């Protein structure tokens, strides 16, 4: 990747970080220097179950999926990521414990990527960077708990409506079997909802 392509990605990263917790200029410069471009083909496993997540990704292109693989091949889709947002196995990255689930690309993907060691250094040096991670983690936790409520209480139709209110574009981006798995409904229920529910 050339610098020409790299710089809009960094601009997007800055916009994204500013939305969570803007960093003073000098610290942002150090932060920006800690990221490298990275690309992966479709259906590439980025992190396997049992590995400790070493990277934090910022997605600039493509769709990724985190999924848990249960014995006898049953799998559950935990989360999708797409531009412009962070990706990676966040809990493993932060706790340094082995990942309980996989992260894979669903389409050809481009990222900026940084490592745990680099972020740890910056967090030790600057309390603003620590605040950034604290806030990003808080937002992520709020999202996870909200989804927990939806999964336990909402009907298939309610879950379907919420997903497409939140991210209507993913209907055309992601094979529906993964969306069905994300909503914890079976594939035939999903296609019935798709043909009957007015979005």
């Amino acid at each position: 990747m050339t610098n020409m392509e790299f710089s809009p990605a960094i601009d997007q990263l800055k916009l994204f970080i500013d939305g969570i917790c803007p960093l003073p200029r000098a610290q942002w410069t150090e932060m920006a220097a800690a990221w490298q471009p990275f690309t992966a083909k479709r259906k590439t496993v980025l992190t396997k179950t049992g590995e400790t997540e070493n990277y934090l990704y910022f997605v600039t292109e493509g769709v990724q999926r985190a999924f848990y693989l249960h014995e006898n091949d049953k799998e559950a889709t935990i989360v999708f990521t797409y531009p412009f947002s962070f990706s990676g196995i966040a809990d493993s990255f932060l706790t340094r414990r082995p990942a309980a689930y996989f992260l894979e690309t669903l389409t050809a993907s481009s990222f900026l990527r940084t490592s745990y060691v680099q972020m740890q250094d910056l967090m030790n040096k600057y309390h603003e960077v620590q605040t950034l991670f604290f806030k990003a983690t808080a937002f992520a936790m709020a999202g996870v708990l909200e989804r927990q409520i939806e999964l336990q209480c909402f009907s298939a139709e309610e879950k379907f409506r919420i997903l497409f209110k939140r991210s209507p574009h993913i209907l055309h981006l992601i094979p529906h079997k993964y969306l069905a798995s994300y909503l914890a409904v079976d594939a035939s229920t999903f296609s019935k909802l798709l043909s009957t529910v007015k979005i």
Partner: protein
Amino acid sequence: MQHNSNQLLDKLYRQTSSFMDEAVQRWQMMPAQQFSLQPSPVQWSAKQCLAHLNSYGDYYLPAIEAAIRKARQKKKKVSTVFTTGWLGDYFTKMMQADSNGQPLKKIKAFKKYVHSNNEEGDKVIAVFIDQQEKMMELMEAAREVDLNTTRAGISIAPVIQLQLGDIFMFITAHNHRHLCQAKRAAGIYSDGLK
């Protein structure tokens, strides 16, 4: 005809990837009625076209996977050049469509690969998507084996063995042919295809 093995796989992978993109962006979003539309009582709907391709995938994907597994165990030397065989070449040419996506030659499908228009459309699409995913995985895995000496039997007569490179080429051509037909049936004329 000779091909650089990796470049050939790149090309076939890109084509399969575009079939996959179309399936995700177009086929899985299409209303059931449009997907089952037959241009005339004797012509297939888009659904029948995809079901036809799936029934070939049902045979070839496991056959290719087994062939690759076997070749890996033997650890044969991988040639950077792939030379098409005469029979493989014949099949690929037979499947080819012209630049407008029209078949160059009419072929009557074998009976067991002809599907009625009554199957459930969402299942047909889901299988098609799974198969394209699998096919791309196999094309990647094929980089570690020899496309000339790795062989698998053809669906209509498994005793006839074709080179893996030929199989990839004619399946991709076959997919392209019937996806163009499916687009015509569903009344879609994008990508300059008619």
